[in-house]
Structure formats: structure tokens, C-alpha cells
């Protein structure tokens, strides 16, 4: 019996909606579960106090600081480099062998798994360069990891700036650099910022790479060469060691809230300022 196409369509579309529903369901479930179990344990004391008794009591303040430190420094290093690369690729050279090589490097870097970054960071930054397990080693490793993201999003943002802007700038007698900084970057800023915000999100959720480079010390990191533990790593250790499920959930809920905030911010930036190129 031949099934009429309209019926097949309805069946298939129904199936796809189910799949989509399941996908979204999983996401909502994870977020809801973590928040439901964790938020009740979050208090001002939790956020501002250091951990006591191996993390069984007290709070996560050093972890929040460590995450901010490592992420902030990492993005601070990666952003100018990534932006410079994007500017160079779009404004200062023509498509050719050179740009292909640079792009190949960035694209390959994007695909490398985080454990390999961790291995590299450990061998290169921690041991060979002698930085030890530290915020600096972690930040440098993370910088390498998010560099491709920043290059890609910055390049897209810069390319989206209409050519006319550039021509007008030249027509008025500006140098290339003036054109780039005063015209192109100003226009592309929201797109570039979105990329940076996404990079921040990636850094915050990273565990394997920081485990091997920034270490897992519980204390407040006071300098670049102090080792410390990020939120994700703290959550991993708390939950695996079975030290305190309540604190583990609480840490996870903070993580989820931060990620949600970052994603919402990036999304808002994109909606408000960036034109959809496609």
C-alpha cells in the first residue's frame, strides 16, 4: 500500500518535533535539576568564604577568584592576538598562500581536544618554561585554546562591515590603520565582543586543560604563580571524591548560572547590534 506523501510528511515532521522536544527536554532537565538541587545551598557565605575541611564546609570564594583570574588573563592575552590576526587577514593582505597557512593553523587549533592542550601546557608552560602549576600556565593554555574562536568571530564581524565604509575613509585621506581603528573596528565591535564573550564561556567550562596546568590548590591565588582551583575543577573533585554532594551541586549551580548569564549576554549582543549576514 503506498503511503501518500502528505501522510509521510506528517509522520516524519511529527518524529522530528519529538526529537527536538527530547533535545530541549534534556537541556532543560539538566539545568533545572542542577539548579533545583544546588541553589538552596548557595548563600552569601558560600560565595564569599573559603572552603574548610577539604571543601565539606565553607564556600567557594577562592574558586570564583581563580576562575576569574585564569579566564580573564587568558582572554586578555587571546583577544588582542586574535583580533590582530583577523585584522591582518582581512585588511592587510590579499587571499593567497599566506592567508591559507594562517587560517589552516587557526582551524586546526580549533579542533584539538582540551586534554592535548592540557598535556602541552603541562610540558611546555609548567615544566619547560618553569612556570609551575599556576594561574599563568593555565591562562596561557586557555588563551591558545580560545584563540581560534576569537579569530573566527572577529573575522566574520570585520567582513560584515560594508565596503563603502572603507572606501569613504580612504577617500577622506585616512591611513589604513586609521581606517581600521576608527571605522571598521567601531562597526565590528559588537560582533567582536560576542566572540570574546563566547571565549569567556569556553574558558569557564574548561576542566581537563586547567587541571594539568593551573593545578588544584584550595587557597586563594594571590599572584600569577600561585596555583589554584577553578569552579569546574572544584565541582569535579567534590563530586568524584564524594566529599559533599550538597556543596558539589551548589558549585555546579553557580557554574550553570554563570554560563547562562554569559550565553544570554552574547545572545543579546548579537540580537541588538549585529546584522544577520546570512
Amino acid at each position, binding site marked *: 500500500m503506498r503511503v501518500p506523501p502528505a501522510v509521510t510528511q506528517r509522520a516524519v515532521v511529527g518524529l522530528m518535533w519529538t526529537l527536538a522536544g527530547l533535545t530541549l527536554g534534556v537541556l532543560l532537565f539538566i539545568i533545572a535539576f542542577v539548579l533545583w538541587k544546588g541553589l538552596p545551598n548557595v548563600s552569601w557565605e558560600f560565595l564569599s568564604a573559603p572552603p*574548610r*575541611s*577539604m571543601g565539606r564546609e565553607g564556600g567557594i570564594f577562592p574558586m570564583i577568584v581563580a576562575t576569574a583570574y585564569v579566564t580573564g588573563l587568558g582572554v586578555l592575552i587571546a583577544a588582542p592576538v586574535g583580533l590582530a590576526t583577523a585584522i591582518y587577514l582581512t585588511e592587510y593582505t590579499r587571499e593567497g598562500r599566506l592567508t591559507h597557512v594562517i587560517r589552516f593553523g587557526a582551524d586546526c587549533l580549533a579542533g584539538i581536544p582540551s586534554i592535548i592542550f592540557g598535556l602541552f601546557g603541562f610540558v611546555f608552560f*609548567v*615544566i619547560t618554561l618553569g612556570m*609551575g*602549576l599556576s594561574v599563568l600556565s593555565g591562562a596561557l593554555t586557555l588563551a591558545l585554546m580560545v584563540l581560534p574562536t576569537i579569530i573566527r568571530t572577529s573575522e566574520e564581524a570585520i567582513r560584515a562591515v560594508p565596503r563603502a565604509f572603507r572606501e569613504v575613509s580612504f577617500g577622506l585621506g585616512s591611513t589604513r590603520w586609521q581606517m581600521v581603528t576608527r571605522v571598521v573596528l567601531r562597526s565590528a565591535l559588537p560582533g567582536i565582543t560576542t566572540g570574546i564573550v563566547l571565549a569567556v564561556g569556553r574558558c569557564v567550562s574548561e576542566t581537563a586543560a586547567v587541571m594539568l596546568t593551573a*593545578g*588544584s*590548590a*584550595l*587557597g586563594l591565588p594571590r599572584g600569577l604563580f*600561585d*596555583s589554584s582551583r577553578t569552579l569546574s575543577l572544584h565541582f569535579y*573533585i567534590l563530586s*568524584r*571524591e*564524594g*566529599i559533599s554532594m550538597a556543596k558539589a551541586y551548589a558549585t555546579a549551580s553557580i557554574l550553570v548560572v554563570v554560563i547562562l548569564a554569559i550565553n544570554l549576554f552574547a545572545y543579546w549582543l548579537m540580537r541588538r547590534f549585529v546584522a544577520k549576514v546570512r
Partner: protein
Amino acid sequence: MSVIGSTSVQPFAEMLAEEFNRNNGDVRVEVQGGGSTAGIQAVANGIAQIGTCSRSLKPEETGFTPITIARDGIAVVVNLANKVSNLSRHQIRAIYEGKITNWRDVGGTDQPIRLITREEGSGTREAFTHLVMGETRIAASAITQESNGAVKELVKNDPGAIGYMSLGLVHGDLKALTVDGVKANAGDVINGTYPLVRPFLFVVKGTPDAAAQRFIDFVLSPPAQAMLEKEGLVRAK
């Protein structure tokens, strides 16, 4: 000052460091995990001043000074629902070798035995291998977990599981088997009758510097040892 090493020692070292840092403003002790072998390496490389170890030093690890800070029993644990309460060392070895595969062969219900072990290079695993397995390999089918806590969680939830972990962390959620008829508790570890005991070591290269020495002295002092005992370890002496 960095203290790096065994994940078994880590929670206790962190606790001691917290106490030490609170009373000594000028020296700051930082504790990391990474594993017993990593700890020894870190001391060798100069990355750490003190390495922590949950096994005795191997003969090829020369040039280090080991200082026993506590002793820890290794408990062989099973699920609370498991009927088996006592096993001989020989039986435990046969189980971990993969020769005995069902609980009914050692007096329990008809249920396949699920082996849980720690990762290669873990001090706890090294100690277990040294004390129980000898030269025999642990079966390839054993599930590997990367911390005492993970082993505990698994055994707690799986009625057919058997694992080994730090005695100090058992806390009544699991059943610690009596080995060769000897109960696994602090008393029997102290007087030496419980066979599965391993030292927790602080390892330094040569002689410790002043700051390290202060921390070591603190750890060996009666109040610190009492803290460790409260957490389930056994005093060094």
C-alpha cells in the same frame, strides 16, 4: 610552599595545611593532588618542596627522605547488602585476578562479582598490589575509577561490586570486609594485626628547608596527629 602528591593523602594534607596556614602567616602551604608518583617527581624537579605518597618508596627512588606522617589501612569494601563479611587474602587475590567470578563461590548470593580498582600509579593501588596481589596481575576487566570517593560511590550503589580504598574514608556507607579474620578498624591497624596497612609519607629531597621543616614538625605534633586520627587515620607512631 608546595605540597604535591597522593590523592589519598591530599584531603588530610589540605586539612593540616589549613590549620598551619591559619597559625603561621609567613609561610603559605599549598596542597595539590596528582598522585604519589607525581609527587615524588615534583620534588625531584623542584616544583614542590614536599611530596606526599601513600605507599612506601620504591627501591629505585633514591635521594629522597621519607617521613611517615600517618598510617592508613586499606579496606576491602563491598556493598552493604552483600552477605559476605570475611575473605582471606588468598581469596581476595583470586577474585581480583579474575579466577573467582561469582559471589556464590565465596559464600554469597548468586551474583557476578564486579571488580573495581584504582588507576595505574595510584598509591592506593600500588599498596594494594604490593600487599595482596604480589606479582599477579589485576584482571583486565576491572572497572577503573580515579579516586577513593569514586570507588566508594560505585560500591555503595552496586550490590555486586568489590573495591579497595582508604580505611579512613569508609564511614559506614559500605561494608569493610574482615581480612583473614581480622576486622578492619583503627585498633587493629595500630597494633599491627590488620594486614593491609600502608604508610602516608612526606617525601623531601635530601634535607628539608626551614619552612618545610616547620610544616613537618607541625604535622608530627600531637595536636595534628590527633586531627588525623579523628579523620580515620592512624598515628605515625
